[in-house]
């Protein structure tokens, strides 16, 4: 490589980096300020982070597999959230949104996220509206799939989360539909 080519490569790299900065960091606050775009991209209720507008991450969301007895993951764009808690909220909100066919969710329709927090030990507490229990179809496996949808969605996408406990209406519950023990945070792979 001649010195001239080295110089050219460096220049192109610098220009590319500048453009990336411009699009993802420099410009967003500018066009984010204009009303319409921001409303359309606003994070769902419950998420208070002023996420840079339009910024997305790739996340794996979980749905009932074709065989009816497992979860399968699908990669989706999910709104970027600043920090683990905000990102976890975005992932859960994307996860509980009704999926497009042919995907079938194990989360009962109407379920909303009330709150979410993560302990220093990496245990995420996902507080859901009571629909998650009231609208549940029942069945041990179906209940396991519902709970593990949340466990998988957070542990698979967020290294900082190692276990997940589901709360309903702000409180610890025995089970969602009479089967799965919800007294303890559940880890991704149960023995």
């Amino acid at each position, binding site marked *: 490589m001649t010195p001239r080519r080295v110089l050219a490569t460096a220049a192109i790299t610098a220009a590319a980096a500048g453009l990336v900065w411009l699009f993802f960091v420099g410009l967003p606050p500018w066009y984010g300020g204009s009303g319409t775009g921001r409303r359309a991209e606003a994070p769902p209720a419950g998420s208070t982070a002023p996420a840079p507008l339009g910024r997305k991450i790739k996340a794996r969301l979980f749905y009932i597999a074709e065989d009816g*007895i497992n979860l399968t993951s699908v990669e989706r764009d999910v709104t970027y959230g600043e920090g683990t808690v905000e990102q976890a909220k975005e992932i859960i909100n994307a996860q509980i949104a009704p999926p497009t066919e042919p995907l079938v969710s194990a989360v009962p329709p109407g379920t909303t996220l009330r709150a979410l927090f993560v302990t220093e030990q990496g245990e995420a507490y996902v507080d859901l509206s009571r629909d998650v229990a009231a609208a549940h*179809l029942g069945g*041990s496996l179906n209940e396991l799939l519902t709970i593990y949808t949340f466990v998988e969605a957070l542990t698979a996408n967020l290294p900082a989360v190692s276990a997940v406990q589901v709360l309903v209406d702000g409180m610890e519950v025995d089970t969602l539909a009479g089967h799965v023990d919800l007294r303890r945070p559940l880890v991704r792979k149960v023995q």
Partner: protein
Amino acid sequence: MNARPFSLFSFLISAALALGLVLLVVSRPRGQGTATPLTLLAREGRRTMSVGVINDQEFVALDDLAAVFQLAVHEDSLGAITVAYKGRTVVLTPDQAIASVSGRLISLPAPPSRAGRRWMVPVEFISRALAPIYDVRLDLRKPSHLLVVGNLRVPRVSIRHEPLTNAVRLTLDATPRTASTVVQDSERLRVTFDADALDVTIPAFQPQGLVQAVRSVDPVTLAVELGPRFAAFRTSTQSLDTTTRLVLDLVATQTQTPSPAPATSPPAAVPSEAPIFGRPASAIRTIAIDPGHGGEDEGAKGAGGTTEKNVTLAVARRVKAAVEGQLGIRVLLTRDEDRRVPIDERPAVANNNKADLFISLHASASPKSATSGASIYVAAFTDTDQARVALAPERVPTFGGGSRDIEFVLWDLAQIRHIDQSAELARLLEQQFDDRVPLGARPFDRAPLRVLESANMPAVLIEMGYLTNADEEKRLASSNFQNAFVQAVLDAVLKFRDYLGAATGGTR
């Protein structure tokens, strides 16, 4: 009730069924019955018809038949007797042992005979001449002096008994095939047939130490009165062509054996085809069955309206009847009515009653209606759980110095130390379900199921099938499926008892 010097014929009228059926049982000792009246069994009830004997042939009066079956009887000037029913006719000729039935000739064992002003016809007239022209099925059972009118299920039941070494075998053959259940009820075994009435011949018994008597206690139930030497019983059922054979072996208490050398005498008192039930030394004395959900908690629900809480209760009751009746093992239900039972109370019932097994019954649901099949679950624990149990002290200091072992149970994790046996029970259930209960894609799994975690005995949860699958919803509600399921559970319990016996000294 009717008794005569040489032939006792007794009839027991049953209580009406929900449909208003009046059911009957007929029993009598062996003997000649030439003038025994004919008993008519019908849905509407029972009546008798007198029978006369002429030249060793049994006859019934034609006008009695006419009254019961609404027949028009007409004797013409040439002497022919015409019996008409809804435009169909039977023509009889005096002195001829034949009759014309709707134009076809049939034979009779004897010609019609005049007794005073009445015409008498051989009883075979009913089956050979009347039955072909009558609207409703007429089933003449001459040896039993029975005439079954309509489609009643009245199986013939014959009973044989034979002494075995230190046991008595009763063989009950029911024809056509009829299911039965055997339940021990203190001093008697009650054998109940799935029928409307029984056509049963009870042989004379010499009352002895094992069996005092066999009698009819209701239209479809026979009772074996047990003697003082009775210790245990076992049952086995075989289907032979058109007959269901129920073999009841009653085993006597061990008499004092003078010989201390058992190796010289064959130990098997009874030819062994099935394990002996009801032995006091059984490793399983009590089973807790937990019908899932209940009360306002309906559990899963099918499109046809079948609810999980009702299916689980119905199956639990069947399991109780079968296990108590056939295995002599006590069965506790965590609920025996439609009520809500808090989830932690369910294993508590089993723990407080020192049950040896805990089986929770459920029916499943899925947003995907194609999902189907049964699954068996055992509890799953995390590493943290295991560590908590490992840290629980087993030796504690005692007052005055030293230490002693204590049983220290973390109740929310009591299942941990039984988990291997639970998995074995699940494996045996899966094996027994095989061709009887359709299995799901993952028939065995471990999961953090709350109802199992604090059970201090081998415990499994069975999801019997999916109510959200239309075919399975129908199947789960059917008694055929429920019976097959119960039988599979019963067989698995027997295998598990063998396993516990072989494993000498389980955890309890």
